[in-house]
């Protein structure tokens, strides 16, 4: 059913007219210009600067229901001591663990998916859109709620987390299949576990049936968002921008197009940084999202090589059984 309708739609695409705006025709005056090679590549502003350029009056979107505000605050990750950033495992526990890994030849790349994707990367996704009433916002949350004027709601937070989940999952797909799949699974499992807990603890929803209903709804939204972002990534900027408009801007007809552009720059720059990381660095949880007030500049070949050398140096002394990995350090 889906295939028939999309085929019909694709027949009607006015491809020729599109070329008028994406024309690659070079005018005679600039064709053989000897100054061409001395021209500096155009620099673009950071996503926050781009969005702040615009002064279009904001028309608040009429949401059907008033967002429910959190009444309490759950721990950011969990109460478990192992997820405390200051936690340090005692030496004897570490020694037993290392021997265990060595004895049973445990595939550490598989085991690492839990703490890296299910904790570090989950924290990264959650942090970006997190807000609590009367608490200061992080830089990225400011970008989403104050600069782009997105509504502060639980569903909006979920959409922001999904966008970050998708960016990470694009990179995870580029890992060897069995590891990438495992990383994606751990991350999405933890996202939904956290949603379930927060709906009960922070939003005070006491009925499990209602929570389950919301989770199913959010799962459908996740599938739809990932499909449209993937379509945008594989097609062009305007398709990705439309996907961002539908999912993050809630299809707001009065949207500031400059804001969509700023968000697209944010997404594209994160994907660029992700593509320049080696599998090993990414697999060990070294990636952090670049704040939207920072500008990402494309790398030269020598800078890329420098980064690879740096990564190799960083991992060369990792000899412990728990630090073993088959993930590539070259790409």
């Amino acid at each position, binding site marked *: 059913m889906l295939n028939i309708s999309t085929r019909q739609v694709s027949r009607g695409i006015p491809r020729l007219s599109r070329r008028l*705006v994406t024309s690659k025709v070079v005018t005679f005056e600039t064709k053989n210009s000897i100054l061409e090679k001395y021209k500096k590549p155009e620099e673009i502003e950071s996503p926050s600067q781009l969005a702040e350029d615009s002064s279009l009056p904001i028309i608040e979107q009429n949401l059907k229901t008033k967002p429910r505000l959190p009444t309490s605050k759950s721990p950011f990750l969990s109460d478990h001591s192992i997820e405390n950033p200051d936690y340090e495992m005692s030496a004897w526990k570490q020694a037993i663990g290392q021997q265990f890994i060595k004895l049973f030849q445990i595939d550490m790349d598989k085991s690492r998916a839990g703490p890296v994707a299910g904790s570090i990367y989950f924290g990264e996704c959650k942090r970006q859109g997190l807000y609590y009433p009367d608490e200061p916002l992080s830089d990225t949350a400011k970008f989403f709620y104050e600069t782009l004027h997105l509504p502060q709601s639980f569903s909006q937070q979920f959409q922001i987390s999904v966008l970050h989940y998708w960016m990470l999952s694009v990179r*995870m797909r*580029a890992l060897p*299949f069995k590891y990438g799949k495992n990383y994606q699974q751990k991350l999405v499992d933890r996202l939904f576990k956290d949603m379930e807990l927060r709906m009960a603890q922070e939003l005070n929803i006491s009925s499990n049936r209602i929570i389950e209903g919301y989770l199913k709804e959010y799962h459908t939204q996740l599938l739809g968002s990932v499909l449209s972002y*993937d*379509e945008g990534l594989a097609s062009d*900027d*305007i398709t990705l921008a439309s996907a961002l408009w539908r999912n993050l801007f809630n299809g707001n007809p009065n949207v500031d197009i400059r804001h969509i552009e700023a968000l697209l*720059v944010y997404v594209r720059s994160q994907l660029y940084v992700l593509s320049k990381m080696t599998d090993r660095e990414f697999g060990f949880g070294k990636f952090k999202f670049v704040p939207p007030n920072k500008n990402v500049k494309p790398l030269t070949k020598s800078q890329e090589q420098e980064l690879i050398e740096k990564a190799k140096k960083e991992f060369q002394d990792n000899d412990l059984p728990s630090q073993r990995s088959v993930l590539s350090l070259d790409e």
Partner: protein
Amino acid sequence: MSTKKELATQIRSLLNTLPKERLNYYSSFKDVQLERFENEKFLQDIGERDLKLQYDALRDLVNDKYRNYYKLDDKLLKPKGNPDYYSRLLGNIKGERKETLFDAARTVIFGK
């Protein structure tokens, strides 16, 4: 006003070059924005600088400025974990290929 009218015309012609969405989403960016920039009241209220920025932003998006600026290589677009992922997805969305029951079962069982 005439510059604003010109800008609105340029925005509408840019929007008209966009292909129709391949899937039936709940709302179409092209249709909604075309309607917005045809609205006389909206065009009267908006400042010229703001309208110019809307045009510039839309033009950059349509011209794939950022896709070309942050160029991604095959590392992400043909991921080694699943090299045909995007071509298969786009093929299905465009209706160029049809997922058979066997393909679907294979994806569910093996994950790719």
